[in-house]
């Protein structure tokens, strides 16, 4: 199956979801998204970064420099309390949307 293009705004949800477990750096986030979606969702890896900047400036994630597992300097992103709330909200609305879409798909 061909990878599906990301719906606008979904990348934010995916990043927040990926960070829900533990703080991680960009590379790991990309890997986690791929893993979470069983390789169905393909993220253009570079586009993570504008999204990360946006989420950070909205106060949903916070960044801190640290050392990666390869012992290189890397920026680790963590979910803030506001981010966790946002994740719940977005997840819920996503579920509603998904349910609605699948309903439409089934009835036609």
């Amino acid at each position, binding site marked *: 199956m061909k990878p599906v293009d990301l719906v606008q705004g979904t990348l934010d949800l995916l990043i927040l979801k990926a960070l829900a477990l533990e703080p991680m750096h960009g590379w790991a986030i990309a890997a986690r998204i791929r893993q979470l979606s069983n390789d169905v969702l393909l993220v253009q*890896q*570079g586009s993570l*970064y504008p999204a990360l*900047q946006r989420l950070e400036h909205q*106060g949903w994630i916070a960044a801190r420099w640290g050392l990666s597992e390869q012992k290189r300097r890397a*920026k680790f992103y963590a979910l803030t309390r506001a981010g966790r709330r946002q994740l719940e909200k977005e997840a819920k609305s996503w579920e509603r949307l998904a349910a609605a879409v699948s309903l439409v798909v089934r009835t036609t």
Partner: protein
Amino acid sequence: MRLLRMIRLRLRALLRFGAVDAELDEEMRAHLERLVAEHVARGMAPTAARREFGPMTQLMEESREARGVTWIVAAAQDMQYGLRLMRRTPGFAAAATLTVALGIAATTAIFSVVYGVLLRPLPYGEPDRLVNIWSHAPSRGLARGYVAMANVYDYKARNHVFEDVGAVRAIANFNLTGPGGDPERLLGGRMAANVLPLLRVAPLLGRGFTAEEETIGHERVALLSYGLWRRRFGGDPSIVGRDISLSGVPHTVVGVMGPAFAFPSRDYQIWTPLTFDPEELVNRLNYSYLAVARLERGVTLERARAEMDVIAAQIVREHPVIAAGIGVEVVPMLSDTVAAVRTPLYILQAAVLAMLLIGCANLANLLLTRAVARQRELAVRAALGAGRARLVAQSIAELVPLMGIGGAIGVAAAAWAIGAVAPLLPADLPRAENIALHLPVLAFAAATMTAIALLVGAWPALEAARSGIAAATADLSRGGTGGVRRARTRDVLVVTQIAATLWLAIGATLLTRSLAELKRVHPGFNPEHVYSAHVAIPRTKYRTDRDVAAYMRRILDRVDALPGVVAAGMVNRLPLAGGAQTIPIEFEGVDPAILAPGVGLQVDMRPVTPGYFGTLQIPLIAGRAFTENDTDDAPSAAIIDERAARAVFRGADPIGRRLRFAIPNQPWHTIVGVVGHVRHDRLDDDGRPQVYWSYEQNTQDRQVLVVRSAGDPSALAQSIAAAIRSVDPEQPIYDARTLDEVVERSLAQRWLQTALLGAFAAMAILLASIGVYGVIAYSVGQRTREFGIRLALGARRGEIVRAVMRRGAALFAVGAGIGLAAAAASARVLSTLLFNVGAFDLASFAAATMVLFAVALAACGLPARRAAGVDPSVALRTE
């Protein structure tokens, strides 16, 4: 916590722009390297990794946008660019900054007056619910007057619309003596104890009055105004509880009011409790009280008015003789206070905004010219993908430094102007103490600046964006005519300027003519060479009428003996000095129906000394003037003015006829003379007829001394004061000035209006002439080649001049048409300010139009001559 972190992030993104970028760059590079390494390990090309990662530069740019602060960075860059532009074109920068500064200064200064006087809420609690209650009796010739104490009691007892009704009575002559300065006359108010709670103000120090202090015997307490407290008592808080001497009677100071308290006006400096003769509740004659009330919450003004009308009608039914024809008026306190100046102030505000508009048109013109010069730059920006919004934003951001500097200068100039003009403000301008750069005034200035920036900034950018790249580049190759469309934009600007200027000029001409008319009005007396001084005689010292009259005579004897004095006299109210005292009069054997039904003739009541008519040179027309023989035991005599004689006796001889106050149980007075009529209230309002009595037969304690001198009357000031003090060293003298000054002061508001409007109009004419010159000169510059060709083909120079002038004349005609229409449309408002000049006064309209036409012609003439002087060979080679 979250907020703090976000602020820190944004600040960092803004201030450490480079560092943030570098970090992101490092992060993305590390990611990409790892991706490449992974691909290579799997045996794939590094380019595939790059493709999977995405375009680096674009992602960087997107990240910057995501930080949400790029627009600020861009705006800051544009502003910096604007500053550089200003430095590069200092002439343009100076002209534009000066225009903005001038416009902001004038608008802000005038708005500070409009706000301080008209709009600023009264310094009381919930001031919107406060009203003044007036009596009015149009059938008695009284537009509006104070109320009687009996009315206040009736209103209070019968109404269901007010929370409370209070009263205050002006006391003209409190004579403050004792340590701290010379004897000083103070305007004070007897104020009911419930007034302060009604207004919802508390004294700054001490307390207000108690109900008990309203009873005679307990009323010797006083509240000081803030100004008096600071000035006379050095702001000493221990004054509360101490005694001060008011007209020789000790009063205990119970409190000091705050600096904002100016009730009923800023002239009041001291208050004592309201006491009155209980007889007033029975005879209902003394209409001397200002009634104030607070509307119940939720009660509308209309409902209050309706109910008060009913109550007033009841009072008339219950007291058919005394109260006949007396109605009631309920007016919101603030608008009541400023009613007389509202229209003039709004007209000035409109005038100054018109001037601002004219200045803005010049500014827009300058910017248009610059936009043409920068056409290539704008075109290139547009070609590189800058949207219309971006171009407009840039154009406005570039203006910010100019606006900021011009605006700051303007506000500073306004602050200076307010300080400089404050002492010149007419004494009768209400609430003048509120004029300052209050916050709303600054907000108004900021809003004006923003409006200018949006208006003049957006326009050229939109023009540039609209005309597009093709037009721009095409034009550029030929040296840039700016295109037809831009020429039309300039035409619109010039037409606007001419219309607004003509509108202003007509208004200024009308006011000037009106003022000239007013100065021609003969007031009925000769103010030249007369000095006047108010003298409030304390009844505590001069108890009987006889004592007062004797004291007056002693003062006059001393003054008469001064060298240089031609004549001297006294009167209770000086003409044109504000303040009136009126009384209804009936005449023996004259049907009152020919006057006012049932109530007689309302006249100015004037007790005078024998020398008064001679001093003011009020002509004696028939009979005799008063003499020292008209004493209190002689038969009571009266002198009427020619207007009363005409209205009442209609040609018959009034001498020997009798008159009396139209109040029950009054004695008759015999008319012994007729004198000329005097305009007492205002030059532009003929007011009432006058009736005079001898000061010995009708004695009052508030007097004005008038002295006619051989030379300069103000030279007498010192010796007159000394003469009065030689009779009684404790006698305060106030409001002392020449009669010419008194007349001038009565015209001060009109004079200031006229001067300001005239100044605005002159400024507008100057700005508009610059505007016309600029546009015509520009168009001549653009057409140099055309003129060169025409001249080369044999056109005469006169034709070229005519062509240029024709264009100017056409623009003028359209602008003047609009301006004349606007002047005609606003005539109704302006007519309320005019005296003896019609709002459609043809001469004023014509004169203003001619002046502006001449100026416009001159502004066109210069460029026209330059056009005619074009050398064809040079013009054709300018490519």
